């Protein structure tokens, strides 16, 4: 599974770095906490494992960046944070008017690769309009995607986004991100078909 995932990869590296820091600090702190919390834990023997559903409930209220970070914490958290429903919530949170039913949107996006991918590729980079991240997006997408169409899409997006970073997305932005997702999907499809001498 190579890469339009370059943005996600950068994000992952960032997350991994944070996680390593956390682990180093965490060693001392966890010991400390365990001493304080020993009393609590002893009193509640049934609470040694967080239920998956509970974690899911908590994750529902979290923003994208935190969810990404959360998936790096442990296997259980990773499994829960990968859930498409959570990413669907994150994607659609800021969409004022989707222009089609939720069920329709869901089936289309899931067929084209899922909400998590949609978010990491086309929404996350656009909601964080620091010039360096945008330029890295256009350079990484031009290097990863075989055709030039995705990089030409990325360029005109730059000025639009820099203007209003946290605006509620309207129908146009939603359609744009969905179009980009489907372009990517079909690119991948065509690329693999091109192989055996078509």
């Amino acid at each position, binding site marked *: 599974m190579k890469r339009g995932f370059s943005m996600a990869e950068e994000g992952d590296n960032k997350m991994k770095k944070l996680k390593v820091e956390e682990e180093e600090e965490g060693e001392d702190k966890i010991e400390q906490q365990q001493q304080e919390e020993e009393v609590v834990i002893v009193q509640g023997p049934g609470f040694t494992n967080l239920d998956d559903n509970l974690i899911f409930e908590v994750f529902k209220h979290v923003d994208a960046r935190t969810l990404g970070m959360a998936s790096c914490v*442990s296997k259980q958290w990773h499994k829960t944070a990968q859930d498409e429903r959570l990413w669907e919530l994150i994607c659609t949170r800021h969409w004022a008017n989707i222009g089609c039913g939720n069920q329709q949107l869901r089936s289309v996006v899931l067929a084209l690769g899922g909400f998590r991918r949609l978010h990491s590729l086309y929404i996350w980079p656009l909601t964080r309009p620091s010039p360096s991240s945008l330029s890295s997006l256009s350079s990484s997408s031009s290097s990863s995607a075989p055709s030039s169409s995705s990089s030409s899409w990325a360029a005109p997006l730059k000025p639009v986004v820099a203007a209003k970073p946290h605006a509620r997305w309207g129908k146009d932005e939603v359609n744009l991100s969905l179009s980009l997702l489907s372009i990517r999907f079909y690119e991948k499809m065509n690329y693999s078909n091109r192989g055996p001498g078509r």
Partner: protein
Amino acid sequence: MSSKKMITLKSLDGRTLEVEEAVAKKSPMIKKMIEDEDVMEDEVDDEDNDNDNVVHLRKVTYKVLDKVMEYCKRHVNDDEKVVNEDELKAWDQDFIVKTDKSTLCNLLLAAYYLNIQSLLLLLSKNAFHKTGEDKTMEDMRILLACQQ
């Protein structure tokens, strides 16, 4: 006017807490336990028999139960329209801030166990603060600590 029916909640460590029935019934789980007990009672038993009103909560410690009931007491009138939203929100935030981290963690688990949706929602929203990178990692450690 009429005396409210009191329910005794027995925690994991054996200590009991008395609350009004309406407050205890904020938790659907407790509500079911109470109602099941009532159904099982014979007609002969009189209502003053305190033993029938003890609800055993084997997974919740007294400290956490106390906090949960504090929340329930404040929110017992949520269904009625006399609620002052801002005041309630401020109280909720204060409630979260006053509670120490390990208790918050156990509170989350208790809210899940007792199935108190509004408390669960409140705690979930506050589990991860958006006040910067370090804060987020700190909050994640809270939940992690619950797992260890």
